[in-house]
C-alpha cells in the first residue's frame, strides 16, 4: 500500500490503462508538452509519446466531439477538460452526441469515452470557472457521472471509467489534488454505482460526494467530540449510477439524514437523494431531511465570502444539530 496524492492516483490510473489497452488515448489542452494545467498528466508524454498523449487547441466543442466520434469506431479517448466549467461550450457534443448516440441508434453505436477534469468551487476564480455540473449532466439518461473524494476512489473510479463502454464523466477537484491517501499497489477498480461508508455512526447519516465528503468527515469528528453524536458519512462516489441501497440502509439505521453537496440547491444531486429517502424510507425518519449546499448565487470571487458560500465544517455542524434537535 503506497501513500500517494489524489493527483498521482489519477495519473497512475491513466498510466496503467494506457499500458493495458493501446486504444486508450489521452487528449486535451496542455496535457502533453505542458504536462497538464494541474499536472495530472505529468510525464505521460515522455512515457507514451505524442500518438497516445495529444495536445489540443483551445477548442472544446471540436476536440470533445472528435473524441466522441473516435470512440464510436473503438478508440477509448480520455479527454481532459481544464475545468468542467469549459464543458459548457461543448455541451451539444457532451449531451446530445455522447449521451444520445446509443439510444438514437437503437443500440447500434457505443460511445466509450471518458471526459475528466476538475469541477469545483472554492478556488477564488469567480463564477465562470467554478461550476459543478454533476447534477446537470447526471440528469441525462445515457451519461454516467462519478465524483471521487479520495486518492483510492480517484484511481479506482478512473480505471473503471476507462474500461466502461458508456460515456463516463469524471469530476475531480483541484483542492483535493494534493490530498494523500493509501492506494493499493495491485490492479483494482472501484465499480461505478457503489457508495462507500467513509465513517460508521448510529445517530445521523450524512450523505455527500466530492469534497463535501471531506468537509462532512471533519464535521462528524466535531459532532462526536463536542456534542457526543455518532455520525455516519456515506460517500456517494458515483452520482449516476446511484447506490440507493447504501443510502437507505444507513438511514434505516440512524433515522436521520443530512445531505451535503457543493452544488447550488436547486435541482442539486441531493434533491434526488432527498426524494429517494422520503419515497423509500419515509417511516424510518425521525426528523425532516436537511440539506447543506452552496448559497444560491453565482460563485462569488471574494475568497472570504466564497468560503462561507460553500458548505464548510461550521455550517455542516450547525445543520446537523438542527436535524438532531
Amino acid at each position, binding site marked *: 500500500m503506497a501513500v500517494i496524492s489524489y493527483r498521482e492516483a489519477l495519473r497512475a490510473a491513466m498510466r496503467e490503462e494506457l499500458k493495458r489497452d493501446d486504444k486508450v*488515448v489521452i487528449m486535451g489542452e496542455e496535457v502533453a508538452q505542458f504536462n497538464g494545467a494541474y499536472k495530472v498528466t505529468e510525464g505521460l508524454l515522455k512515457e507514451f509519446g505524442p*500518438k497516445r498523449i495529444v495536445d*489540443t*487547441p483551445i*477548442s472544446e*466543442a*471540436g*476536440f*470533445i*466531439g*472528435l*473524441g*466522441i*466520434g*473516435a*470512440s*464510436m*469506431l*473503438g*478508440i477509448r479517448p480520455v479527454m481532459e477538460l481544464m475545468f468542467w466549467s469549459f464543458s459548457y461550450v461543448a455541451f*451539444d*457534443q457532451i449531451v*446530445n*452526441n455522447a449521451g444520445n*448516440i*446509443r*439510444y*438514437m*441508434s*437503437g*443500440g*447500434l*453505436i*457505443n460511445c*466509450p469515452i471518458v471526459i475528466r477534469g476538475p469541477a469545483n468551487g472554492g478556488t477564488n476564480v469567480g463564477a465562470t470557472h467554478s461550476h459543478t455540473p454533476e447534477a446537470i449532466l447526471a440528469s441525462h*439518461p*445515457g451519461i*454516467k457521472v462519478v465524483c471521487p473524494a479520495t486518492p483510492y476512489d480517484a484511481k479506482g473510479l478512473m480505471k*473503471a471509467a476507462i*474500461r*466502461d*463502454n*458508456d460515456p463516463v464523466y469524471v469530476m475531480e477537484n483541484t483542492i483535493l489534488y494534493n490530498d494523500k491517501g493509501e492506494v493499493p499497489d495491485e490492479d483494482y*477498480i472501484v*465499480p*461505478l*454505482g*457503489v*457508495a462507500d461508508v467513509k465513517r460508521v455512526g448510529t445517530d445521523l447519516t450524512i450523505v455527500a460526494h466530492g469534497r463535501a465528503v471531506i468537509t462532512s468527515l471533519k464535521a462528524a469528528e466535531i459532532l462526536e467530540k463536542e456534542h457526543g453524536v455518532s455520525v455516519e458519512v456515506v460517500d456517494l462516489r*458515483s452520482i*449516476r*449510477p*446511484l*447506490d*440507493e*441501497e447504501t443510502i437507505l440502509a444507513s438511514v434505516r439505521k440512524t433515522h436521520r439524514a443530512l445531505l451535503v453537496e457543493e452544488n447550488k440547491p436547486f435541482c442539486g444531486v441531493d434533491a*434526488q437523494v432527498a426524494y429517494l429517502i422520503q*419515497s423509500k424510507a419515509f417511516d424510518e425518519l425521525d426528523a425532516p431531511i436537511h440539506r447543506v449546499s452552496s448559497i444560491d448565487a453565482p460563485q462569488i470571487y471574494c475568497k472570504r465570502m466564497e468560503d462561507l458560500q460553500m458548505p464548510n465544517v461550521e455550517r455542516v455542524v450547525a445543520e446537523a444539530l438542527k436535524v438532531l434537535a
Partner: protein
Amino acid sequence: MAKPAVLTHPESLKRPAGPSEYAKDPANASMSKADKIALYTKMARIRHFEQRCIRIYQQGKIGGFLHLYVGQEAVAAGTISLLGKHDHIITGYRDHGHGLMVGMGMNECMAELTGRVTGCSQGKGGSMHYFAPDKNYWGGHGIVGGQAPLGTGLAYAVKYMGLKGSCLVYMGDGAVNQGAVHEAYNLASLWDLPVIFVVENNGYSMGTSQERSTAHPGCLAKRAEGYNMAWDVINGHDVYEVRAKTAIALKRAHEESKPTVLEIFTYRYFGHSMADPDKTYRDKEEIKEYREKKDPVFAFEQELLGEKVLTPELSLKINEAAMAEADKAAIFADESPDPTVADITKHIYWEEDNRGPKTTSRGTIIFE
C-alpha cells in the same frame, strides 16, 4: 420576394444540364455499364422513396420533422458510390439519401419514419437519426453542424488505426456558420486528418437565403483557405462531376491524409422540412427552373440514354421497380409493431443491456 437564384448559385447556373464534360473523367470512365445502371437505380430509389414519404407524412403517419432530399440525389449518389471499406460517412438531418446509398433497406428506413420497432433505430431516432454503422454510416444528426467534430473523430480513428480510409462529413450551407464546424476544420487541417467536408449548398439555411446568412456568400468552400485546406466547387446536378471531383479529394485523403472542403451546388424542391409551407422566401419559378433544367436524376438518365447504357424501357422498369419498392416499404412501415413501453428504457447504456460477467457497475441507473 427572394432574390433570383443566380446570386445563390453562381457556379451552378454557369452550365446547364446536358452531356457531362466529366463523362470521360477516369472516375467515370472506369465504371462498367452495370455500375452506371446501378448508380442510376440508386438515385431513382432515393427519389421515389422520398416522394412516397410525402404521401405518408400527409396521411399523418410520420411525426415530427421530415427533411426531404429530392433534388439533391446526385450529391449522396456521386460521393458515396466512390467509397471503399475504410471510408466512413456522417451527415446532418437530411439523411435519407445517404442511408439508401450506403445500402440501407427501404423497409427499415420507412419503418423508422413511422416510429416502428422494425425501423433502423427501432423507432428511437426518427427521420433525422438514421444509423448503419455496419455500412460505415454514422448518422443522421439533428443539430446543425454538430456532426462535423464527430466525423473528424471518425477520420482520426481511421488514421490512428493505420488504415487507408477517410470520413465524408456532409452538412448544409447553413452549417458553415456554426462554431463546431470551424473547430472541426481547424482540427482536421492541424492534424492532417483524412476528412472530406461536403457542403451540400441548396441555397437556403431553412428559410434564410445564403446571402442573408453568410458573409462572403460567393463561395463557402473558400473558407477552407483560412484553415490551410484544399477546396473545390462542384455542380451538384451532374453526378459525373460530383464523382470526378470527389475522387480527387478522396485520393488526397487516402494518399496524403489531408482534408478537403467540397462545396456542391444543389437544390431542394420541397420546403426545409414538411413543416415549411415554402411560401415566403423563394419564388416558385426558381424551383421550376431548376427542376426543368437541372434535375439530377433526369440529367443522369439523359446522359445514360445518350451513352446507350440505358434504354427508355429499362429506365421505366427501374423507376417502376423503385416505386413498387417504396410502396411495399410503406405497407411494411404501416403494418410493423410499435416499440413497447419496456423498450423505452433499452439502449440507453451498454452496461444495462449487457448485464453479465463483463459488466462491473451496480446501483440504480434508470430512475423511477
